[in-house]
């Protein structure tokens, strides 16, 4: 409660921006006059988040290989912790001092940047890679043009502790919510907390609503909603009604309203990793996160199981549709052409195979997917690759302003203070403010 707080609260969000002043973001050239054309010396700045072994060494080698094949190109690699990188990228956009290759989350945030003319169009220079990646690039396309290439993509599903399931007598992974409610009852009867959810961070709670929307809404409705920000279709209300039923069954860990997603052993991931709850809805990152939260560094180890989000009765969405998302490489509009060459190289069979072998993520290049060795991740990969639709997380797809309002309203429902209609109304209100 001292002066630091003034600094934090009143200045934090603004000071960063102020440092950049009014420098026009789109026209400044951070590389100091790097121009195109063969034979000239170009320095490319690349920010990535593989800051520990073996990913960091692998990416250093990738950069060195590219330099060797492209004389005159120097790559300045900066490896950062994931959240730090996110903050730094945000500040770099505000200051107009972006690296030449950066990680792009796609969706509404990307669309806004495209509208401001800040991102390089990769449609032509990366045509070959885009062809190979197929539907995965959808989340990074705006008006039919591609602005970033996803290099790792996964889907969200339930991670569970096979041992605890056995103990409670749940022999088969639930396929429908009827099965799921039965499993919840069995787990509770055995004295086991069924599900961990980090509703303190809001997005883990919001993933439930997203998934029910995916089950209840047809693909056309969702495509239309992303485009027009219109949530009047009743399927969005039904998504909330389904979620209400889940909350009413009280399957969640004690104190879930303040539980963080991944920070520390008492977070949702920590509770799963230490065997205190039976399952958690999370993405492909979960095994890695759990490894970091256990003393032996193994997470749940061979007790790790995975199943897809259960189906609901009478749903209109395609049963194979999955909620997911990934990380993509993009370049600012003013980046030199060699940046695009490097992005294409990062998506090549060779680099993506090494990426998979080093367990750095789930490759998007189909020629590299066989290199994924972890059995649970291989299961997940099958679901991803056979999905009729991989829906980008709604908070990303709709952009932070709409997504944030949506997440806040869903968190309110978890606290018993919002109805299915309230979620739709809050989202629509934020969407209307965007128009």
């Amino acid at each position: 409660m001292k002066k630091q707080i003034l600094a934090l609260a009143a200045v934090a969000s603004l000071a960063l921006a102020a440092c950049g002043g009014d420098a026009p973001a789109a026209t400044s050239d951070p590389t100091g006059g790097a121009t195109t054309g063969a034979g000239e010396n170009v320095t490319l700045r690349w920010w990535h988040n593989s800051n520990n072994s073996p990913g960091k060494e692998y990416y250093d080698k990738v950069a060195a290989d590219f330099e060797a094949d492209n004389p005159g190109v120097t790559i300045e690699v900066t490896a950062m912790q994931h959240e730090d990188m996110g903050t730094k990228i945000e500040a770099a956009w505000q200051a107009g001092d972006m690296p030449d290759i950066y990680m792009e989350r796609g969706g509404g945030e990307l669309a806004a940047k495209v509208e401001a003319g800040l991102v390089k169009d990769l449609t032509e220079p990366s045509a070959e890679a885009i062809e190979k990646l197929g539907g995965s690039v959808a989340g990074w396309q705006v008006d039919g043009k591609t602005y970033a290439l996803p290099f790792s993509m996964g889907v969200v599903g339930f991670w569970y502790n096979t041992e605890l399931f056995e103990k409670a007598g749940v022999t088969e992974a639930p396929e429908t919510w009827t099965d799921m409610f039965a499993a919840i009852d069995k787990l509770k009867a055995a004295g086991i907390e069924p599900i961990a959810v980090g509703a303190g961070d809001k997005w883990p709670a919001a993933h439930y609503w997203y998934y029910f929307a995916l089950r209840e809404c047809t693909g056309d409705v969702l495509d239309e909603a992303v485009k027009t920000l219109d949530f009047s279709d009743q399927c969005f209300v039904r998504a909330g009604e389904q979620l209400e039923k889940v909350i009413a069954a009280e399957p969640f860990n004690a104190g879930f309203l303040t539980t963080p997603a991944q920070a520390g052993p008492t977070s949702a991931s920590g509770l799963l990793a230490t065997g205190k709850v039976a399952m958690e809805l999370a993405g492909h990152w979960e095994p890695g996160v759990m490894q970091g939260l256990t003393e032996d560094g193994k997470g749940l180890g061979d007790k790790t199981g995975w199943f897809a989000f259960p189906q609901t009765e009478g749903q209109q969405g395609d049963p194979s549709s999955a909620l997911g998302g990934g990380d993509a490489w993009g370049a600012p509009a003013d980046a030199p052409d060699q940046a695009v060459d490097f992005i294409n190289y990062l998506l090549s069979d060779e680099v993506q195979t090494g990426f998979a072998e080093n367990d750095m993520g789930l490759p998007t290049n189909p020629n590299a997917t066989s290199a994924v060795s972890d059995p649970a991740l291989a299961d997940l990969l099958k679901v991803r690759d056979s999905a009729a639709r991989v829906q980008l997380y709604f908070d990303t797809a709709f952009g932070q302003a709409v997504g944030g309002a949506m997440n806040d309203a869903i968190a309110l429902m978890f606290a018993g203070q919002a109805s299915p209609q309230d979620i739709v109304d809050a989202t629509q209100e934020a969407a209307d403010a965007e128009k």
Partner: protein
Amino acid sequence: MSQTTAAPPKGASEGVVEGGRSEERPPVTRPRKPRDWKMVVEIIAFTAPALILFAMFVVWPMLKAVQFSLFRWKGFGPLVDFVGLKNYISVLSNDVFIGALGHNLFIVVASIVIQLPLGIAIALLLNRKMRFQGILRTVVFVPYVLAEVIAGVVWFQLLQPKYGVIDSMLAVVGLQGPPQGFLGTPEYALWTVMVVITWKYLGLAIILFLAGLQGVPEELHEAAQIDGASWWQTQWHITIPLLGPTLRTWAFLSMVGSLQLFDMVWILTKGGPANATTTMATFLINEGTKRSNYGIAGAASVILFVIALTMALLYQRFVLRRDHATDEPKEKSR
């Protein structure tokens, strides 16, 4: 200029300058132009770095905040979408912000109501001669020295429902914490945060009050004792009134801090559950960094600033002024 100051003998030059100037200006001061000029340069040279830093890191961001608050801005690209006062209207008509303002005011009042009597009582006790006085004072002050983030994380773990230390202790005496935990239940969350804040900041109040007690003359106590006053009467009628200026200054710091409260709330609850502990500061951080509504965040920060400034000025005008007023007549009478 260097010739006039350096060359002639001291006495002579002073005489000339003084004589020449005395007709133009009143003779009370001894104006020596070269030195005046030098002083100005010196003042500029010494204050410039601080002023530049102040302008860069305080004035400039503040002006920027005002500028952002008038635009719809997502955090990148040029400022083009001018919306006038729309952001202010949307902040002031936002239920969450109004709730946050209410929480801030609750914390302002609760801090004073809880910490003031507790702080005075403990300070009076610690001011008596006793064994382990030094150690006790240190113990009381330790929470204040801890970084806010660390204190927050520790309390978050202590307050974990089911697995946390507090719930385990309650279980020993046969009680049970709320199922969502003290931080996760909207009805208790703000009070729980208040308890942690009290734990954290009581030490500061006590140390300030102890310092104030050093300024209460011993003779007054002795005189009172001779007149037959009890210990309690002495404290109530002499010590506490003389502690007035310290109490008022502490209350001022407490008020300003409560209005700007951010870190402890962010770590314990992030403003949740169901916005039960949102403060104006967590609201604006959420709007800015989580929702990319930098215009709204700018407007909220300006509103927070205006509220804090207004309350500070009013306090200065009506409360702290008493302390200045008692000094002034003395100065004049001399």
